[in-house]
């Protein structure tokens, strides 16, 4: 899956499942900052989505990897089978 496709799937997930406003959400927007304001419970949603959609486990992965769509996509790219 091309990186762009991964990012676009992640963005759709954030919009539909976590109710994030698509106009505000860019690929480099801080997910846990003031603008989007996701919390630690949402990280479980993200881990579950990445696990079931891309087959990549993000359990126990450092917080930096969850910073933005860009960083999550980079992690997926680097770890997918």
């Amino acid at each position, binding site marked *: 899956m091309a990186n762009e496709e991964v990012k676009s799937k992640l963005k759709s997930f954030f919009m539909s499942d976590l109710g994030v406003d698509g106009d505000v959400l860019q690929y480099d927007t801080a997910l846990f900052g003031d603008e989007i304001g996701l919390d630690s*419970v949402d990280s*479980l949603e993200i*881990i*579950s989505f990445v*696990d*079931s959609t891309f087959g990549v*486990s993000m*359990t*126990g992965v450092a917080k930096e990897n969850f910073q933005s769509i860009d960083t999550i996509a980079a992690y997926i790219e680097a770890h997918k089978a």
Partner: protein
Amino acid sequence: MKVALVTGASKGIGKACALRLARDGYTVVVNYSSSDEAAQQTLDQIKAEGGDGMLYKANVADLSQVKVMVREVFKAYGRIDVLVNNAGIVRDEYLLMMNPETLDKCFDLNVKGYFYCAQQVAVKMYKQKSGVIINMSSVSSKFALPGQAVYSATKGAVNSLTQTLAKELGGFGIRVNAVAPGFIATEMIEAIPEETRKGYLEKIPLKRFGSADEVANIVSALASDQFAYVTGQVFVLDGGLSL
């Protein structure tokens, strides 16, 4: 199809739980770390009784092996409904004799292993928005026996993590409970010297050791919808030992 993963299911309490859950209609994953023959016997018995399942050899104290195991089980069955965190060891040592390896071994399996399995399985259960995790604790977590400081501490940790995970995961339809058996007649008990065993029997109001099947009865109940409103609890079955 409902799927149960039982760690340490080649012998003793884990084996009894695997057999019981299979009778309850679960497809059972029999995890173990070294006893190939005993594990095969567990699976053979499940199948002989009309049940189904698979063997999975993995050291649950090793996160990377747990990750692969949960992934493979999920690949095979597409879901995990029940996790019985059971694989555990006891190493009795008085404080002044205690060595760091004992401490590491016990905590690696009895505590870290439970965390690893719960974490990897919870990701799958989270997606399903349902699941039951049952942690095998021990009466030693509540009742002090000299020489069991390390074991008791690991089981105390199991009780605490049970309560916290119950709170963390409750909102996602996942229940987490613990079972704390007293002396149950398994290899673990057979390893205790005869004299000491006799001494223990005297302290048990019901004057006998429990059976692995009796532990499996509680595990079966906790896994079922009959206990759908119970989470974060530690169920003691010890013949009254801790009273």
